[in-house]
């Protein structure tokens, strides 16, 4: 397969950046998108050109670092996958593929396709934890009965890998789906009730401080999320926030 790539190149955070066009040949349909970029980078290195910088780690859809905007969609045209799980069989010979970094004021570009997603870390630090002393006196998990539905919903919320696709897909660059997942995973469990009010207020405050946009319920985040985090979490976040604002 021969492809035309239009790739965003940016020297550093201060550089204005721009697109460069590259042709790659010999791409197999069974290759992952990142392997295709590896081929491109091998070619560039052989030509004495700086390779394209892009984030990647586990390459099996767990770490959430391989976040790329591919032909206008986070993680490309497939659903419920990360970029590393996107196969080149989704493209045809001769296709042009536009590759950009996720765009948000809160996600500044570091170099080429690599962005700084530490804004998500700071939202987590603001309240995404529980203060349970686990040093030697931990209770047996089964001693606190939890409704099966709540346990499942909490688990599903906790599957968020923080890749940032929700922010990238949202026309407002809103981080509501991410924040709502991180709030929900605790809000649904008894262990999370103690700091519930403080948690949601602090995390929403931090989310706003980072400069993310406002959610307008387009639902794009849910569709593009590789883990299928549901919009129900955003409704829960809104409820938790309103309740905390009134009663704390």
């Amino acid at each position: 397969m021969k492809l035309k790539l239009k790739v965003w190149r940016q020297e550093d955070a201060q550089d204005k950046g721009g697109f460069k066009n590259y042709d790659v040949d010999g791409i197999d349909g069974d290759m992952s998108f990142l392997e295709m970029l590896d081929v491109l980078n091998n070619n560039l290195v052989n030509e004495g050109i700086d390779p394209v910088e892009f984030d990647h780690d586990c390459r099996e859809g767990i770490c959430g670092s391989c976040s790329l905007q591919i032909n206008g969609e986070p993680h490309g045209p497939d659903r419920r996958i990360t970029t590393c799980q996107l196969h080149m069989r989704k493209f045809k010979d001769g296709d042009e593929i536009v590759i950009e970094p996720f765009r948000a004021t809160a996600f500044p570009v570091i170099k080429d396709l690599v962005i700084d997603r530490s804004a998500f870390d700071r939202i987590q630090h603001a309240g995404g934890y529980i203060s349970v002393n686990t040093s030697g006196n931990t209770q047996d998990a089964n001693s606190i009965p939890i409704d099966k539905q709540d346990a499942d919903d909490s688990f599903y919320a906790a599957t968020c890998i923080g890749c940032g696709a929700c922010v990238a897909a949202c026309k407002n660059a809103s981080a509501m789906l991410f924040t709502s997942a991180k709030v929900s995973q605790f809000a649904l469990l008894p262990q999370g009730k103690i700091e519930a009010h403080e948690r949601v207020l602090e995390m929403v405050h931090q989310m706003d401080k980072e400069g993310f946009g406002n959610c307008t319920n387009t639902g794009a985040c849910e569709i593009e999320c590789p883990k299928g985090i549901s919009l129900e979490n955003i409704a829960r976040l809104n409820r938790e926030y309103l309740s905390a604002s009134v009663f704390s």
Partner: protein
Amino acid sequence: MAGISKTSIARKVAMALSGLFLVLFLAQHFTINFTSVVSPSTFNEISHFMGTNFVVQAILQPILIAGVVFHFVMGFVLDIRNRKARGVKYNKFNGQANSPWVSRNMILSGSVVLAFLGLHFYDFWIPELIHKYVETNPDDPFRYYDETIAKFAGNPIRTGLYSISFVLLMLHLLHGFASSFQTMGVNNKYSSGIKIFTKAFAIVIPMGFVFIAIFHYFNNL
């Protein structure tokens, strides 16, 4: 509760509440207007009541105007903030792959409705104020039906503009009405019923307004 008004969720909730308030007003406005199709005398009676009742004029009307102004101003404020949050625009953004057009273009449909409100005020509200407070005409409970009909009779352009505006209002409501419940945190066993109701409302009420305008246009050819 300190600082609640400054957060993104509080702004969303304020938008949702003002939107729900305007939806209630819309239902009431439609009910009154529809009487002009079935019973001109009833239309005159209700319009006269609404135009002369102290509570409606001195309390409800200012609240309504405040609600309208707030909804539009907040809509534009949020849009500006949201554009700023994106920063650098995408070279390619495939929005239709993951979200409906109406949900991504609320500011566009809302702007058309705002422009329509200007026309509507020019057609009805400003003449009403002049009639009552500038010219200080004597009270006439039978003038409302004739004045309303006169705006559409023999005027295809005005009838067309009203119809187009209400189609845009329908698109605005198709997303906005259901979305306001999600913003209020409503997501339970009633959610699917709420979605069906809000979609039906978003279609029936604006299309009802279009029907009224077209009815009076053709009824007076």
